[in-house]
């Protein structure tokens, strides 16, 4: 039987790591509610009184409304496209019935491309985007995002579809469903748990993506949040209070969802762990 003392001994490192893990973010959270003047007087004071209006100012005066909107548009659009295409392709790869030329080599190719480092595609994608006038546009960014996350989405959803017994498909067929309606009315709803996993994984990836954004976007008006933060930290380095508020705006939506759906988030992020 474990005594109180050993229990406490176990708890100590746990608490220590929790302080290390949560400390920096909580500190930022307190600063987000304090003015820069207050922060320079004492960096570790509590946010009393709390300046909630800073969020409003960041939103309206510092352009976070625009950046937030850009991030939201890009992330949601990319997730939608990648989910629809990924589910259809994943299903096609899961069923041997759908034969098409080079099926197996294609799947191998997709699987390998999951592990490709982005740098190998970065410069060639830059050339393509410039060539097709998609450089410096959110559409171009969405296309790139879809292309980079599609392989992993196909791979994950294929594995799930392969587990669904094909009897269900046949039953739907007997009831008069074609390929299209069978997929959308029977298979897709059944795959919703797996789809939710990929939606979360992809959304977090798109919301936080930086490398492609920094190379493909140079106009201020269409910066996404990670990009905006990188520029603000060099332009307004002194204004710590406002930056902290910006960091909260960039992270809180995700963290609030995470609080309520943490199991799903953990599932989603760890499903992506096969990606290099």
């Amino acid at each position: 039987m474990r005594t109180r003392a050993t229990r406490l001994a176990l708890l100590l490192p746990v608490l220590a790591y929790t302080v290390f893990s949560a400390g920096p973010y909580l500190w930022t959270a307190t600063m987000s509610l304090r003015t820069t003047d207050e922060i320079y007087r004492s960096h570790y004071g509590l946010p009393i009184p709390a300046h909630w209006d800073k969020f409003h100012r960041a939103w309206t005066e510092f352009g976070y409304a625009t950046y937030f909107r850009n991030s939201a548009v890009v992330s949601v659009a990319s997730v939608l496209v990648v989910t629809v295409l990924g589910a259809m392709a994943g299903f096609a790869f899961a069923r041997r019935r759908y034969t098409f030329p080079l099926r197996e080599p294609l799947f191998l190719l997709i699987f390998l491309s999951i592990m490709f480092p982005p740098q190998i595609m970065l410069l060639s994608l830059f050339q393509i985007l410039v060539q097709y006038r998609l450089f410096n546009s959110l559409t171009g960014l969405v296309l790139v995002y879809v292309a980079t996350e599609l392989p992993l989405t196909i791979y994950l959803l294929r594995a799930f579809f392969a587990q669904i017994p094909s009897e269900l498909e046949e039953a739907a067929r007997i009831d008069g469903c074609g390929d299209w309606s069978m997929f959308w009315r029977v298979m897709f709803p059944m795959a919703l748990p797996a789809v939710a996993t990929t939606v979360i994984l992809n959304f977090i990836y798109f919301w936080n993506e930086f490398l492609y954004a920094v190379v493909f976007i140079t106009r201020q008006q269409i910066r996404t949040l990670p990009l905006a933060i990188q520029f603000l930290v060099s332009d307004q380095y002194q204004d710590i209070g406002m930056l902290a508020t910006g960091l909260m705006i960039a992270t809180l939506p995700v963290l609030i969802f995470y609080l309520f759906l943490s199991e799903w988030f953990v599932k989603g992020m760890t499903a992506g762990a096969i990606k290099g």
Partner: protein
Amino acid sequence: MYFAFAIYPVLVTFYNSVHTLRMDLGMQYEFVGLEHFREIVGADDVFWKASRNSLTWAVAAPLVDMPLALALALLLYRRVPFARFFRTVWFTPVLMSYPVVGVIWLWVYNYDWGMANLVLRAVGLGNFAQAWLASPATALPALILVTTWMFAGFNMVVLLAAIHAIPTDYLDAARVDGASGWRRTWHVIVPLIRPTLVNLTILDFIGKMKQFALVWVMTRGGPMWGTETVATYVVKRAFEWKTLDLGYPSAIAVLWFVIIFGLSWGLTRVLQRREALEF
């Protein structure tokens, strides 16, 4: 058929990554053969510094992250109260973007009022307080610690799931055979989650070989190339240096891609073989 359309972007990507292999100068293609590669390996000091930094990062990070993550997972497995709460908190950093994390840690490493020096001064080690990101000797380790902050909790969650997936019969059997807590941990749990450990180690390794964003936000590769990684060097050569040549950085990217693939393949072989020997 619709799946052909789904695969199209991937094919375009492939088409282009093949095209990167061809040496193009500016927007005008000019064939230079292997000239770029010869220059990279033979005469580019910055490339060697960058690759040494990337490799250091890729080797050091798993060595720090994995034991830490395993220790934390084992702690939580021993029914610590509020385990779910701790798990939730530890996992959080991985949900943030690199720029956000970068800014927060720029503050943590601030010389005058950053948390790092605050803690050192508080425990009487004020002499060690320093501007962590300003010296080439401490900047890279400081950045490595940031990725540990991000990924140790994540790795911990994956390991904990693997431990929970072990059939309790095995552990019960070990207990019946009289194995103590430590022996059960080292001789039953760790060997059984070895595949997960190997996978995470390799992912950690590859992830750090590709590291770009954190460096870009926090140090831009400085001071004195002290934190330059291959990825940041590629982007700098392509878009910041006035050479206006996409061919050279493309060649670096290709070379590094081959190295990453080779090393992770080798690492997989080595780690898996050791696994085979132990069973």
